[in-house]
Structure formats: structure tokens, C-alpha cells
């Protein structure tokens, strides 16, 4: 599609698709991280918008991915037929360095909507929710960040532009995390993946913070480089709600003589 400016106020525009290939390829690489050849999803279609962000550009992509069928019991317990996913990615491209800020994917019912992105799904700017990321105050050592209030430094729900030197800030927060928790990664790719998980987790922590009715503070912890699925699988205990367990009789009230 020809590049055109949607409306002066939005300062976002739809670039030619070739300009999207770089970020799209990076997003696909992140999505397929850790998968063996033959099990990787492929990119079917992509569209998106780009706007200036700090020293770089922020791409908001809507991509259709094709998940390959899987019949190998070594790879998937149950046979999986070919599946089409609709994903939205936010990628920051600063001086050629890509950073995945957000990834949301869900199945697309190809029968109803047809393959790929529905033509008439044009996203009006007003629907576009600007997601931004935390500023290093979250990683302050615990005792003295008492007075930081996340909402005052985080343009989560506002339309403010991303902070300047965003990637530099995020890299610094992540480096703090690595030092504090003595974290190391085997490969550069792993480190890149963990950085994108870390950034995504900061957004999740930000939302949890915004919705908490108590006095709790959420932010960087030693689990901040784990995906939700990894955290749940490794540290939590779904057995608790699955099985009734042995029946115990009820304790007598404490004031019962």
C-alpha cells in the first residue's frame, strides 16, 4: 500500500510493505525462538503502521502466521492440524536495533473471517491503544522506591510519545536486573529473547499495579525474565485446584471449651 499520513494528529502512517519486512522478520524470529526446523510458523500477511518514537520508529504490526501441522508425537502429544494465528506486535527499531515490546496472538477462525487480516478491519486511530513501558524507577532497590508512584512516571494509558532513548533505558533496567539477580544467558539470541520477555513483563506488572486496590508495589523481581507460562509451570501448583484431596474434618472453633 502506498505510504500516506492517516491524519495530521496521529503522526502515524502506513509505510510500504517492504518497510515492514525488517520488523516483521524480527517479530517472526522472536515468535519461533527455540523451535526446531519444520515446526516454525511462517508469515502469511502483514500490515501495520509506524510512528516516530524517540530516536527510532515504533512499528505496530498485524500479522497472520501459519502454524505448521504437527504429527510427530515427539513434538506434540496430540496431532495438530495447520492453524492460522492473528498476531499483533509492537517493535521498536532504533538505529537498526529491533526490540520486541509486545506480542499478542490468538487463533483466527479462517472459515468466518477468511484468511489473514479482514480488509475492513482498518483500525481507527482512536482504537489504537498506546502501550508504553516502565521507566527505570521500577528497578530501584526496594527500600527507596517507596515514594515512586508508577502511574506518575508511566504514560501507559496516555498518548504521550515514548521516552527518549527508550531502548537505552530499557537496556539499563535489564542490566540492573542481570546484576541484581546474577543472571547469565548461554547465547546472544537467548539474551535478546529474555530482554523482550522482560519488557513484556514490565507491561504486565504495570497493568497489575494499575489494577491493585491495595498498597502493593509490583515491578522487577527475580522472575521478571520468565514468561507467564514458564513461571506458572515451574513455580505454581495447578494440582491444588484439580484434585479434592483427602477429606479432613472441620476444626473445632478456638473458643470451644
Amino acid at each position, binding site marked *: 500500500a502506498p505510504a500516506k499520513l492517516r491524519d495530521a494528529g496521529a503522526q502515524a502512517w502506513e509505510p510500504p510493505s517492504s518497510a515492514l519486512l525488517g520488523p516483521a522478520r524480527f517479530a517472526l524470529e522472536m515468535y519461533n525462538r527455540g523451535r526446531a526446523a519444520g515446526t516454525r510458523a511462517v508469515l502469511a500477511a502483514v500490515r501495520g503502521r509506524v510512528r516516530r518514537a524517540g530516536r527510532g520508529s515504533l512499528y505496530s504490526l498485524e500479522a497472520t502466521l501459519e502454524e505448521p501441522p504437527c504429527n510427530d508425537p515427539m513434538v506434540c502429544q496430540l496431532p495438530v492440524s495447520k492453524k492460522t494465528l492473528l498476531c499483533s506486535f509492537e517493535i521498536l527499531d532504533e538505529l537498526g536495533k529491533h526490540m520486541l515490546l509486545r506480542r499478542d496472538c490468538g487463533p483466527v477462525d479462517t472459515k468466518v473471517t477468511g484468511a489473514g487480516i479482514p480488509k475492513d478491519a482498518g483500525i481507527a486511530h482512536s482504537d489504537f491503544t498506546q502501550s508504553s513501558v516502565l521507566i527505570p524507577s521500577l528497578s530501584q532497590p*526496594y527500600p527507596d*522506591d517507596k515514594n515512586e508512584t508508577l502511574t506518575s512516571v508511566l504514560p501507559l494509558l496516555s498518548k504521550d510519545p515514548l521516552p527518549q532513548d527508550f531502548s537505552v533505558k530499557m537496556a539499563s533496567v535489564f542490566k540492573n536486573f542481570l546484576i541484581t*539477580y546474577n543472571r547469565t544467558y548461554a547465547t546472544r539470541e537467548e539474551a535478546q529473547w529474555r530482554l523482550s520477555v522482560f519488557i513484556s*513483563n514490565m507491561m*504486565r*506488572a504495570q497493568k*497489575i499495579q494499575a*489494577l*491493585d*486496590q*491495595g*498498597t*502493593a*508495589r*509490583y*515491578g*522487577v*523481581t*527475580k*522472575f*521478571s525474565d*520468565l514468561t*507467564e507460562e514458564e*513461571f*506458572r509451570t*515451574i*513455580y*505454581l*501448583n*495447578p*494440582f*491444588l*485446584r484439580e*484434585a479434592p*484431596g*483427602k*477429606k*479432613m*474434618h*472441620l*476444626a473445632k*472453633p*478456638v*473458643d470451644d471449651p
Partner: protein
Amino acid sequence: APPEWDWRSKGAVTNVKNQGMCGSCWAFSVTGNVEGQWYLNRGTLLSLSEQELLDCDKMDKACMGGLPSNAYSAIKNLGGLETEDDYSYRGYMQVCNFSAEKAKVYINDSVELSQNEQKLAAWLAKKGPISVAINAFGMQFYRHGISHPLRPLCSPWLIDHAVLLVGYGNRSDVPFWAIKNSWGPDWGEEGYYYLHRGSGACGVNTMASSALVD
């Protein structure tokens, strides 16, 4: 119930432990409870073995998860718990090598506690720390303060983490439960999690239990 209570300052709670990369929270919750019961009924605080439960409690699933009610039953059937030193924690399941001669504590029974948080507070103040199970929503990123997630986000029906109530009180008029977690002292408030009290937050009142020691 007294307006506030804290068994940590009364010697009934061992140091915060770390379950490592293993879903063994149920074992830590139960040993924490039995440690408190043994202290309050026998006068000695011993740090007890979770690894024994991982290896020898065949009703539960070691690092894949378990239930406190099964664990109490296993402790009774096995004949007691060894100490942490005698049967130290590995964080993965091994062959059971429990020996009754080495067991330092036993339990007589276990009970399910009320789902009324005031009664739970009264029970805790009088009888000792309580094993509970909660929905761990938000705990991955919890740093400090009293957590009070919106109920739909922290549903009492999606319980997935077992912990230990060790006290309760108020911080600037916000009622809380002081909860001993098993993710090490470098998580939360030196290993502790503070959760809103009185609103059934995250299902904290749905699976409260305790061992009984004569």
C-alpha cells in the same frame, strides 16, 4: 481475635526457604504448619524436611504439585517428619529414603479450618501458623506492600499456590495477612507476601488447614 498477631516474633516460624525450580509449595506450606504446631505443643522449633514429602508422599506429585491434606495423611502414615538437616532439600524427586528412627516430629491428625477470616485470625492467634492455598495472581512481580487485586483477576476458584499464614494486622488501616512464601528471602518483603485480609482476597480463606499435635 487480638487486633494483630505475629508468630515470627514469638519463635514459631523458621527462616524463609526456597523451593527452587519445583512446584513443591504444598510441601513447604505443610512443613511450616507442622513446625509451628510442634513448637507450640512440644516447645521446640525444628526446621522440617520438605524433600521427605517430595520423595515419600505417593499421593502427591512432588514438583508437579500436591495437596496439604494429602501431605498430612502421608506424614501420619510415614510416622513423622525428619529434620531439614537429616533429609535436606534437593528440589527434585528422588528415591524415598525416609527412616522412622530419624523422624523427630509426628502429627496426630489434621483439620480443615473455617472460611471465615475472623475465625481464621482467632485460630491463628491461639493455635499457630496456618497452611493456606491462594491464587498467585501478580506474585511474579510483587515487590512489597499489601496486595489487593480485583476479585475477577484473582479468583478464589483458581487456586495455584500453597503458603503459610504467620500473622495478621493493619498497616495504616489496611488489614493484612502476613504470609510466608517459599521463593527465598530475595523475593517480596524478605520472602514474605502481604495480602488484604477480610475480603477473601485471592481465595486465602478457601483451603485453610492445620496439623494437630497432641
